[in-house]
Protein backbone atom coordinates (compact mmCIF):
# COMPACT_ATOMS: atom_id res chain seq x y z
CA UNK A 1 0.00 0.00 0.00
CA UNK A 2 2.83 2.37 0.99
CA UNK A 3 4.61 1.57 -2.30
CA UNK A 4 1.44 2.36 -4.23
CA UNK A 5 1.08 5.74 -2.49
CA UNK A 6 4.74 6.54 -3.19
CA UNK A 7 4.28 5.53 -6.85
CA UNK A 8 1.21 7.75 -7.21
CA UNK A 9 3.04 10.69 -5.57
CA UNK A 10 6.04 10.18 -7.88
CA UNK A 11 3.75 9.98 -10.91
CA UNK A 12 2.10 13.25 -9.88
CA UNK A 13 5.44 14.99 -9.26
CA UNK A 14 7.20 13.84 -12.43
CA UNK A 15 4.25 13.88 -14.83
CA UNK A 16 4.95 16.07 -17.88
CA UNK A 17 2.12 18.59 -18.12
CA UNK A 18 0.69 18.21 -21.63
CA UNK A 19 -1.82 20.98 -21.10
CA UNK A 20 -2.11 23.51 -18.30
CA UNK A 21 -5.83 23.99 -18.82
CA UNK A 22 -8.62 21.42 -18.93
CA UNK A 23 -11.19 21.86 -21.69
CA UNK A 24 -14.32 19.92 -20.70
CA UNK A 25 -17.87 20.51 -21.88
CA UNK A 26 -20.38 21.62 -19.22
CA UNK A 27 -22.82 18.94 -18.09
CA UNK A 28 -26.12 18.82 -19.98
CA UNK A 29 -29.23 20.11 -18.12
CA UNK A 30 -31.14 17.56 -15.98
CA UNK A 31 -33.90 16.78 -18.53
CA UNK A 32 -31.35 16.18 -21.29
CA UNK A 33 -28.95 14.33 -19.01
CA UNK A 34 -31.45 11.45 -18.79
CA UNK A 35 -31.14 10.97 -22.56
CA UNK A 36 -27.33 11.13 -22.70
CA UNK A 37 -25.45 7.82 -23.05
CA UNK A 38 -23.92 6.57 -19.80
CA UNK A 39 -20.80 5.26 -21.53
CA UNK A 40 -19.43 7.02 -24.60
CA UNK A 41 -18.87 4.90 -27.73
CA UNK A 42 -18.96 6.20 -31.30
CA UNK A 43 -20.81 9.43 -32.10
CA UNK A 44 -23.34 7.56 -34.26
CA UNK A 45 -24.20 5.08 -31.52
CA UNK A 46 -24.39 7.81 -28.88
CA UNK A 47 -26.71 9.82 -31.11
CA UNK A 48 -28.88 6.74 -31.59
CA UNK A 49 -29.08 6.32 -27.78
CA UNK A 50 -30.27 9.94 -27.45
CA UNK A 51 -32.89 9.53 -30.20
CA UNK A 52 -34.09 6.19 -28.77
CA UNK A 53 -34.45 7.72 -25.29
CA UNK A 54 -36.45 10.67 -26.64
CA UNK A 55 -38.75 8.43 -28.72
CA UNK A 56 -39.30 6.19 -25.67
CA UNK A 57 -40.59 9.16 -23.65
CA UNK A 58 -43.07 10.11 -26.39
CA UNK A 59 -45.84 7.60 -25.52
CA UNK A 60 -47.88 9.77 -23.05
CA UNK A 61 -47.56 12.81 -25.32
CA UNK A 62 -48.82 10.80 -28.29
CA UNK A 63 -51.81 9.52 -26.31
CA UNK A 64 -52.74 13.07 -25.19
CA UNK A 65 -52.41 14.43 -28.74
CA UNK A 66 -54.53 11.61 -30.21
CA UNK A 67 -57.28 12.25 -27.60
CA UNK A 68 -57.52 15.91 -28.64
CA UNK A 69 -57.56 15.01 -32.33
CA UNK A 70 -60.37 12.49 -31.79
CA UNK A 71 -62.30 15.15 -29.83
CA UNK A 72 -61.82 17.61 -32.70
CA UNK A 73 -63.12 15.12 -35.25
CA UNK A 74 -66.12 14.44 -32.96
CA UNK A 75 -66.86 18.20 -32.69
CA UNK A 76 -66.66 18.59 -36.48
CA UNK A 77 -68.96 15.62 -37.01
CA UNK A 78 -71.47 17.01 -34.50
CA UNK A 79 -71.38 20.49 -36.10
CA UNK A 80 -71.77 18.95 -39.56
CA UNK A 81 -74.75 16.89 -38.37
CA UNK A 82 -76.53 19.78 -36.58
CA UNK A 83 -75.92 22.36 -39.33
CA UNK A 84 -77.34 20.02 -41.96
CA UNK A 85 -80.69 20.04 -40.13
CA UNK A 86 -83.37 22.43 -41.44
CA UNK A 87 -83.50 25.92 -39.89
CA UNK A 88 -81.41 29.10 -39.75
CA UNK A 89 -79.15 28.08 -36.91
CA UNK A 90 -76.31 26.73 -39.13
CA UNK A 91 -74.09 29.84 -38.68
CA UNK A 92 -74.54 29.88 -34.92
CA UNK A 93 -73.75 26.16 -34.73
CA UNK A 94 -70.59 26.66 -36.78
CA UNK A 95 -69.55 29.58 -34.56
CA UNK A 96 -70.08 27.47 -31.43
CA UNK A 97 -68.12 24.65 -33.10
CA UNK A 98 -65.20 26.97 -33.90
CA UNK A 99 -65.11 28.34 -30.33
CA UNK A 100 -65.29 24.83 -28.79
CA UNK A 101 -62.51 23.56 -31.09
CA UNK A 102 -60.43 26.68 -30.38
CA UNK A 103 -60.72 26.28 -26.59
CA UNK A 104 -59.68 22.62 -26.91
CA UNK A 105 -56.73 23.48 -29.15
CA UNK A 106 -55.58 26.46 -27.07
CA UNK A 107 -55.04 24.23 -24.02
CA UNK A 108 -52.42 22.04 -25.70
CA UNK A 109 -50.97 24.86 -27.80
CA UNK A 110 -50.34 26.99 -24.69
CA UNK A 111 -48.27 24.23 -23.09
CA UNK A 112 -46.42 23.57 -26.36
CA UNK A 113 -45.54 27.27 -26.74
CA UNK A 114 -44.18 27.26 -23.19
CA UNK A 115 -42.18 24.08 -23.96
CA UNK A 116 -40.79 25.68 -27.13
CA UNK A 117 -39.83 28.89 -25.32
CA UNK A 118 -38.17 26.93 -22.48
CA UNK A 119 -36.21 24.82 -24.99
CA UNK A 120 -34.95 27.95 -26.75
CA UNK A 121 -33.81 29.39 -23.39
CA UNK A 122 -32.17 26.09 -22.34
CA UNK A 123 -30.30 25.78 -25.64
CA UNK A 124 -29.13 29.37 -25.43
CA UNK A 125 -28.00 28.99 -21.79
CA UNK A 126 -26.13 25.77 -22.55
CA UNK A 127 -24.51 27.45 -25.56
CA UNK A 128 -23.32 30.28 -23.28
CA UNK A 129 -21.49 27.70 -21.13
CA UNK A 130 -20.16 25.53 -23.95
CA UNK A 131 -18.95 28.17 -26.43
CA UNK A 132 -16.22 29.68 -24.17
CA UNK A 133 -14.79 26.15 -23.62
CA UNK A 134 -14.68 25.43 -27.36
CA UNK A 135 -13.29 28.91 -28.09
CA UNK A 136 -10.48 28.46 -25.57
CA UNK A 137 -9.67 24.95 -26.86
CA UNK A 138 -9.51 26.12 -30.49
CA UNK A 139 -7.43 29.17 -29.52
CA UNK A 140 -5.03 26.89 -27.59
CA UNK A 141 -4.71 24.81 -30.76
CA UNK A 142 -3.57 27.88 -32.69
CA UNK A 143 -6.91 29.00 -34.15
CA UNK A 144 -6.92 32.36 -32.37
CA UNK A 145 -8.64 34.35 -35.14
CA UNK A 146 -11.05 31.53 -36.10
CA UNK A 147 -12.12 30.86 -32.50
CA UNK A 148 -12.65 34.56 -31.76
CA UNK A 149 -14.72 35.07 -34.91
CA UNK A 150 -16.79 31.92 -34.31
CA UNK A 151 -17.44 32.90 -30.68
CA UNK A 152 -18.50 36.45 -31.54
CA UNK A 153 -20.73 35.45 -34.46
CA UNK A 154 -22.42 32.54 -32.66
CA UNK A 155 -22.97 34.47 -29.43
CA UNK A 156 -24.34 37.53 -31.24
CA UNK A 157 -26.69 35.50 -33.45
CA UNK A 158 -27.76 33.32 -30.52
CA UNK A 159 -28.46 36.38 -28.34
CA UNK A 160 -30.34 38.20 -31.11
CA UNK A 161 -32.37 35.16 -32.13
CA UNK A 162 -33.22 34.17 -28.53
CA UNK A 163 -34.29 37.73 -27.73
CA UNK A 164 -36.20 37.92 -31.02
CA UNK A 165 -37.99 34.64 -30.34
CA UNK A 166 -39.08 35.56 -26.81
CA UNK A 167 -39.95 39.18 -27.59
CA UNK A 168 -41.31 39.02 -31.15
CA UNK A 169 -41.88 35.51 -32.48
CA UNK A 170 -43.63 33.95 -29.46
CA UNK A 171 -46.04 36.94 -29.16
CA UNK A 172 -46.46 36.71 -32.93
CA UNK A 173 -47.54 33.06 -32.58
CA UNK A 174 -50.13 34.10 -29.99
CA UNK A 175 -51.28 36.89 -32.34
CA UNK A 176 -51.41 34.41 -35.22
CA UNK A 177 -53.61 32.08 -33.15
CA UNK A 178 -55.87 34.92 -31.98
CA UNK A 179 -56.26 36.13 -35.55
CA UNK A 180 -56.91 32.59 -36.79
CA UNK A 181 -59.69 32.06 -34.24
CA UNK A 182 -61.20 35.46 -35.05
CA UNK A 183 -60.85 34.86 -38.79
CA UNK A 184 -62.47 31.42 -38.62
CA UNK A 185 -65.26 32.70 -36.33
CA UNK A 186 -66.13 35.82 -38.34
CA UNK A 187 -64.92 34.77 -41.81
CA UNK A 188 -63.37 38.23 -42.36
CA UNK A 189 -60.81 38.57 -45.15
CA UNK A 190 -58.71 41.23 -43.40
CA UNK A 191 -58.12 38.92 -40.45
CA UNK A 192 -57.14 36.08 -42.77
CA UNK A 193 -54.66 38.38 -44.53
CA UNK A 194 -53.15 39.54 -41.23
CA UNK A 195 -52.96 35.92 -40.14
CA UNK A 196 -51.03 35.01 -43.30
CA UNK A 197 -48.77 38.04 -42.75
CA UNK A 198 -47.95 36.98 -39.16
CA UNK A 199 -47.05 33.48 -40.38
CA UNK A 200 -44.98 34.82 -43.29
CA UNK A 201 -43.17 37.28 -41.01
CA UNK A 202 -42.23 34.57 -38.48
CA UNK A 203 -41.00 32.20 -41.18
CA UNK A 204 -39.10 34.97 -42.97
CA UNK A 205 -37.38 36.16 -39.78
CA UNK A 206 -36.20 32.65 -38.91
CA UNK A 207 -35.09 31.81 -42.45
CA UNK A 208 -33.25 35.12 -42.85
CA UNK A 209 -31.46 34.74 -39.51
CA UNK A 210 -30.26 31.27 -40.52
CA UNK A 211 -29.21 32.36 -44.04
CA UNK A 212 -27.23 35.31 -42.66
CA UNK A 213 -25.60 33.16 -39.97
CA UNK A 214 -24.54 30.34 -42.33
CA UNK A 215 -23.33 32.86 -44.93
CA UNK A 216 -21.39 34.83 -42.33
CA UNK A 217 -19.85 31.70 -40.80
CA UNK A 218 -18.93 30.42 -44.27
CA UNK A 219 -17.18 33.61 -45.35
CA UNK A 220 -15.46 34.45 -42.06
CA UNK A 221 -14.51 30.80 -41.57
CA UNK A 222 -12.55 30.79 -44.81
CA UNK A 223 -10.90 34.17 -44.13
CA UNK A 224 -9.95 33.62 -40.47
CA UNK A 225 -9.06 29.95 -41.09
CA UNK A 226 -6.59 30.99 -43.77
CA UNK A 227 -5.06 33.61 -41.46
CA UNK A 228 -4.57 31.03 -38.68
CA UNK A 229 -3.23 28.38 -41.06
CA UNK A 230 -0.70 30.89 -42.43
CA UNK A 231 0.39 31.88 -38.92
CA UNK A 232 0.87 28.21 -37.96
CA UNK A 233 2.82 27.56 -41.15
CA UNK A 234 5.05 30.58 -40.41
CA UNK A 235 5.71 29.27 -36.87
CA UNK A 236 6.63 25.82 -38.25
CA UNK A 237 8.96 27.46 -40.81
CA UNK A 238 10.65 29.47 -38.05
CA UNK A 239 11.13 26.28 -36.01
CA UNK A 240 12.56 24.37 -38.96
CA UNK A 241 15.10 27.17 -39.49
CA UNK A 242 16.42 26.85 -35.93
CA UNK A 243 19.37 24.82 -34.63
CA UNK A 244 18.26 21.15 -35.06
CA UNK A 245 18.30 20.27 -31.34
CA UNK A 246 16.36 23.41 -30.29
CA UNK A 247 14.00 23.06 -33.27
CA UNK A 248 13.38 19.41 -32.32
CA UNK A 249 12.63 20.27 -28.69
CA UNK A 250 10.29 23.14 -29.69
CA UNK A 251 8.52 21.01 -32.28
CA UNK A 252 8.06 18.07 -29.89
CA UNK A 253 6.75 20.32 -27.10
CA UNK A 254 4.24 22.17 -29.27
CA UNK A 255 3.15 18.93 -30.95
CA UNK A 256 2.51 17.28 -27.54
CA UNK A 257 0.45 20.23 -26.32
CA UNK A 258 -1.52 20.60 -29.57
CA UNK A 259 -2.37 16.89 -29.67
CA UNK A 260 -3.49 16.98 -26.00
CA UNK A 261 -5.66 20.06 -26.57
CA UNK A 262 -7.04 18.52 -29.79
CA UNK A 263 -8.18 15.40 -27.95
CA UNK A 264 -9.85 17.48 -25.22
CA UNK A 265 -11.52 19.75 -27.81
CA UNK A 266 -12.85 16.77 -29.73
CA UNK A 267 -14.25 15.13 -26.56
CA UNK A 268 -15.83 18.38 -25.35
CA UNK A 269 -17.22 19.13 -28.82
CA UNK A 270 -18.84 15.74 -29.37
CA UNK A 271 -20.33 15.80 -25.85
CA UNK A 272 -21.59 19.33 -26.58
CA UNK A 273 -23.16 18.22 -29.87
CA UNK A 274 -24.94 15.33 -28.13
CA UNK A 275 -26.06 17.59 -25.25
CA UNK A 276 -27.49 20.19 -27.66
CA UNK A 277 -29.36 17.45 -29.56
CA UNK A 278 -30.56 15.91 -26.26
CA UNK A 279 -31.96 19.29 -25.11
CA UNK A 280 -33.68 19.86 -28.45
CA UNK A 281 -34.97 16.43 -29.51
CA UNK A 282 -37.63 15.69 -26.85
CA UNK A 283 -39.51 19.01 -27.26
CA UNK A 284 -39.03 18.78 -31.04
CA UNK A 285 -40.69 15.34 -31.11
CA UNK A 286 -43.47 16.48 -28.73
CA UNK A 287 -44.31 19.48 -30.90
CA UNK A 288 -43.64 17.58 -34.13
CA UNK A 289 -46.06 14.77 -33.31
CA UNK A 290 -48.79 17.35 -32.58
CA UNK A 291 -47.96 19.18 -35.83
CA UNK A 292 -48.39 16.01 -37.89
CA UNK A 293 -51.52 14.84 -36.05
CA UNK A 294 -53.18 18.26 -36.42
CA UNK A 295 -52.39 18.29 -40.15
CA UNK A 296 -54.01 14.85 -40.43
CA UNK A 297 -57.00 15.94 -38.32
CA UNK A 298 -57.47 19.06 -40.49
CA UNK A 299 -57.55 16.85 -43.58
CA UNK A 300 -60.04 14.43 -41.94
CA UNK A 301 -62.27 17.31 -40.73
CA UNK A 302 -62.22 18.80 -44.23
CA UNK A 303 -64.20 15.75 -45.39
CA UNK A 304 -67.22 16.83 -43.27
CA UNK A 305 -67.48 20.15 -45.15
CA UNK A 306 -67.04 22.48 -42.13
CA UNK A 307 -64.35 24.70 -43.59
CA UNK A 308 -63.97 27.00 -40.58
CA UNK A 309 -63.05 24.22 -38.15
CA UNK A 310 -60.75 22.59 -40.69
CA UNK A 311 -59.03 25.96 -41.33
CA UNK A 312 -58.73 26.54 -37.57
CA UNK A 313 -57.04 23.17 -36.99
CA UNK A 314 -54.77 23.85 -39.93
CA UNK A 315 -53.82 27.24 -38.44
CA UNK A 316 -52.98 25.61 -35.10
CA UNK A 317 -50.80 23.04 -36.88
CA UNK A 318 -49.06 25.97 -38.64
CA UNK A 319 -48.40 27.48 -35.19
CA UNK A 320 -46.79 24.17 -34.17
CA UNK A 321 -44.70 24.39 -37.36
CA UNK A 322 -43.53 27.86 -36.33
CA UNK A 323 -42.56 26.53 -32.89
CA UNK A 324 -40.61 23.70 -34.53
CA UNK A 325 -38.81 26.29 -36.65
CA UNK A 326 -37.90 28.43 -33.61
CA UNK A 327 -36.48 25.59 -31.50
CA UNK A 328 -34.66 24.11 -34.49
CA UNK A 329 -33.15 27.47 -35.55
CA UNK A 330 -31.27 27.88 -32.26
CA UNK A 331 -30.25 24.21 -32.33
CA UNK A 332 -28.96 24.52 -35.92
CA UNK A 333 -26.94 27.64 -35.07
CA UNK A 334 -25.24 25.80 -32.18
CA UNK A 335 -24.66 22.62 -34.22
CA UNK A 336 -23.10 24.54 -37.14
CA UNK A 337 -20.92 26.53 -34.76
CA UNK A 338 -19.78 23.42 -32.85
CA UNK A 339 -18.97 21.62 -36.10
CA UNK A 340 -16.83 24.60 -37.16
CA UNK A 341 -15.06 24.54 -33.77
CA UNK A 342 -14.44 20.79 -34.17
CA UNK A 343 -13.13 21.25 -37.71
CA UNK A 344 -10.42 23.48 -36.29
CA UNK A 345 -7.84 25.52 -38.14
CA UNK A 346 -7.47 25.64 -41.93
Amino acid sequence: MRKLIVLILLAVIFAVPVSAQEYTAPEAPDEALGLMPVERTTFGQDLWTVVKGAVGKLQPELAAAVKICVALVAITMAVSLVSSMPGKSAKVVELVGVITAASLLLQQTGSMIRTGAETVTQLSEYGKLLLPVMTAALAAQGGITTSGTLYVSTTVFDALLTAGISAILIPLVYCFLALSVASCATGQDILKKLCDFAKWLSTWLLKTALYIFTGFIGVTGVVSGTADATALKATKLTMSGMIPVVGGILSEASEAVLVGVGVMKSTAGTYGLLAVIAIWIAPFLQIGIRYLLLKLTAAVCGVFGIKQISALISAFSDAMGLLLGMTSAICIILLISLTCFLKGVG
Partner: protein
Amino acid sequence: MQGIKEYLFGVIAAAILCAIVSQLVGKDGLLSAAVKLITGIFMLLTLVSPVLNLKISAPGEIFSDISLQADQITSSASDSTRETISGIIKEKTEAYILDKANLHGAALTVDVSLSESEIPEPVSVQISGNVSPYTRKILSETIEKDLGIATEAQIWN
Protein backbone atom coordinates in the same frame (compact mmCIF):
# COMPACT_ATOMS: atom_id res chain seq x y z
CA MET B 1 -38.92 44.70 -27.34
CA GLN B 2 -41.85 45.70 -25.11
CA GLY B 3 -42.71 48.31 -27.74
CA ILE B 4 -42.85 45.67 -30.47
CA LYS B 5 -45.17 43.52 -28.33
CA GLU B 6 -47.49 46.49 -27.74
CA TYR B 7 -47.41 47.37 -31.45
CA LEU B 8 -48.33 43.80 -32.50
CA PHE B 9 -51.16 43.55 -29.96
CA GLY B 10 -52.42 46.98 -31.05
CA VAL B 11 -52.57 45.90 -34.70
CA ILE B 12 -54.37 42.68 -33.79
CA ALA B 13 -56.88 44.52 -31.58
CA ALA B 14 -57.55 47.05 -34.34
CA ALA B 15 -58.01 44.27 -36.92
CA ILE B 16 -60.47 42.37 -34.72
CA LEU B 17 -62.39 45.61 -33.97
CA CYS B 18 -62.60 46.44 -37.69
CA ALA B 19 -63.78 42.89 -38.47
CA ILE B 20 -66.52 43.05 -35.82
CA VAL B 21 -67.72 46.46 -37.07
CA SER B 22 -67.74 45.22 -40.69
CA GLN B 23 -69.65 42.10 -39.62
CA LEU B 24 -72.26 44.18 -37.80
CA VAL B 25 -72.79 46.57 -40.72
CA GLY B 26 -73.13 43.80 -43.32
CA LYS B 27 -71.81 43.47 -46.86
CA ASP B 28 -74.18 45.64 -48.95
CA GLY B 29 -75.20 49.28 -48.99
CA LEU B 30 -73.68 52.75 -48.72
CA LEU B 31 -73.03 52.41 -44.99
CA SER B 32 -70.99 49.27 -45.61
CA ALA B 33 -68.81 51.09 -48.16
CA ALA B 34 -68.27 53.99 -45.75
CA VAL B 35 -67.39 51.62 -42.89
CA LYS B 36 -64.93 49.77 -45.16
CA LEU B 37 -63.20 53.08 -46.00
CA ILE B 38 -63.07 54.20 -42.36
CA THR B 39 -61.83 50.85 -41.06
CA GLY B 40 -59.23 50.79 -43.85
CA ILE B 41 -57.89 54.22 -42.87
CA PHE B 42 -57.96 53.23 -39.17
CA MET B 43 -55.98 50.03 -39.88
CA LEU B 44 -53.47 51.97 -42.00
CA LEU B 45 -52.92 54.53 -39.21
CA THR B 46 -52.54 51.77 -36.61
CA LEU B 47 -49.98 50.00 -38.79
CA VAL B 48 -47.97 53.04 -39.88
CA SER B 49 -47.96 55.53 -36.96
CA PRO B 50 -45.55 53.64 -34.60
CA VAL B 51 -43.24 52.81 -37.53
CA LEU B 52 -42.91 56.52 -38.38
CA ASN B 53 -41.88 57.35 -34.80
CA LEU B 54 -39.41 54.46 -34.61
CA LYS B 55 -35.88 55.39 -33.47
CA ILE B 56 -33.25 52.89 -34.48
CA SER B 57 -30.07 52.85 -32.41
CA ALA B 58 -26.96 50.90 -33.41
CA PRO B 59 -26.45 47.80 -31.23
CA GLY B 60 -22.82 48.73 -30.63
CA GLU B 61 -22.51 47.72 -26.97
CA ILE B 62 -23.50 44.06 -27.37
CA PHE B 63 -20.91 43.59 -30.16
CA SER B 64 -18.09 45.29 -28.26
CA ASP B 65 -18.89 43.35 -25.07
CA ILE B 66 -18.87 39.99 -26.85
CA SER B 67 -15.70 40.90 -28.80
CA LEU B 68 -14.03 41.78 -25.50
CA GLN B 69 -15.09 38.42 -24.03
CA ALA B 70 -13.74 36.61 -27.11
CA ASP B 71 -10.40 38.46 -26.82
CA GLN B 72 -10.14 37.55 -23.12
CA ILE B 73 -10.92 33.86 -23.75
CA THR B 74 -8.54 33.49 -26.72
CA SER B 75 -5.65 35.42 -25.12
CA SER B 76 -5.97 33.49 -21.84
CA ALA B 77 -6.03 30.17 -23.76
CA SER B 78 -3.02 31.04 -25.94
CA ASP B 79 -1.11 32.30 -22.86
CA SER B 80 -1.86 29.02 -21.09
CA THR B 81 -0.68 27.01 -24.12
CA ARG B 82 2.49 29.10 -24.37
CA GLU B 83 3.14 28.59 -20.66
CA THR B 84 2.75 24.82 -21.01
CA ILE B 85 4.98 24.66 -24.09
CA SER B 86 7.58 26.83 -22.29
CA GLY B 87 7.52 24.45 -19.32
CA ILE B 88 8.15 21.44 -21.56
CA ILE B 89 10.93 23.22 -23.52
CA LYS B 90 12.66 24.30 -20.30
CA GLU B 91 12.42 20.80 -18.88
CA LYS B 92 13.69 19.12 -22.08
CA THR B 93 16.54 21.62 -22.54
CA GLU B 94 17.69 21.14 -18.93
CA ALA B 95 17.47 17.35 -19.38
CA TYR B 96 19.60 17.65 -22.54
CA ILE B 97 22.33 19.62 -20.73
CA LEU B 98 22.29 17.25 -17.73
CA ASP B 99 22.51 14.28 -20.09
CA LYS B 100 25.62 15.76 -21.75
CA ALA B 101 27.13 16.56 -18.33
CA ASN B 102 26.49 12.97 -17.16
CA LEU B 103 28.38 11.68 -20.20
CA HIS B 104 31.42 13.57 -18.84
CA GLY B 105 30.79 12.40 -15.29
CA ALA B 106 29.75 15.82 -14.02
CA ALA B 107 26.92 16.21 -11.49
CA LEU B 108 25.31 19.59 -12.14
CA THR B 109 22.13 21.54 -11.50
CA VAL B 110 20.84 23.54 -14.43
CA ASP B 111 18.32 26.37 -14.74
CA VAL B 112 17.43 27.42 -18.30
CA SER B 113 15.74 30.76 -19.07
CA LEU B 114 13.56 31.17 -22.16
CA SER B 115 12.92 34.16 -24.40
CA GLU B 116 9.66 36.11 -24.08
CA SER B 117 9.09 35.98 -27.86
CA GLU B 118 6.18 34.15 -29.53
CA ILE B 119 8.30 31.01 -29.86
CA PRO B 120 10.00 30.45 -26.48
CA GLU B 121 13.69 29.67 -27.16
CA PRO B 122 16.39 28.98 -24.57
CA VAL B 123 18.39 32.22 -24.18
CA SER B 124 20.46 31.78 -21.03
CA VAL B 125 21.45 29.10 -18.55
CA GLN B 126 22.68 29.01 -14.96
CA ILE B 127 24.88 25.95 -14.24
CA SER B 128 25.96 24.99 -10.72
CA GLY B 129 28.20 22.17 -9.54
CA ASN B 130 31.80 20.97 -9.42
CA VAL B 131 33.24 20.57 -12.89
CA SER B 132 36.79 20.53 -14.30
CA PRO B 133 37.84 23.39 -16.61
CA TYR B 134 38.15 20.90 -19.51
CA THR B 135 34.64 19.47 -19.05
CA ARG B 136 33.29 22.98 -18.58
CA LYS B 137 34.84 24.06 -21.90
CA ILE B 138 33.42 21.05 -23.76
CA LEU B 139 29.96 21.47 -22.19
CA SER B 140 29.97 25.20 -22.89
CA GLU B 141 30.79 24.58 -26.55
CA THR B 142 28.10 21.86 -26.80
CA ILE B 143 25.48 24.16 -25.26
CA GLU B 144 26.39 26.95 -27.69
CA LYS B 145 26.47 24.64 -30.71
CA ASP B 146 23.42 22.47 -29.95
CA LEU B 147 21.17 24.86 -28.06
CA GLY B 148 22.26 28.23 -29.43
CA ILE B 149 23.00 29.67 -25.96
CA ALA B 150 26.06 31.90 -26.36
CA THR B 151 28.95 31.40 -23.90
CA GLU B 152 28.31 34.91 -22.55
CA ALA B 153 24.77 33.81 -21.61
CA GLN B 154 26.04 30.80 -19.69
CA ILE B 155 26.50 31.55 -16.00
CA TRP B 156 28.72 29.00 -14.25
CA ASN B 157 28.67 28.90 -10.45
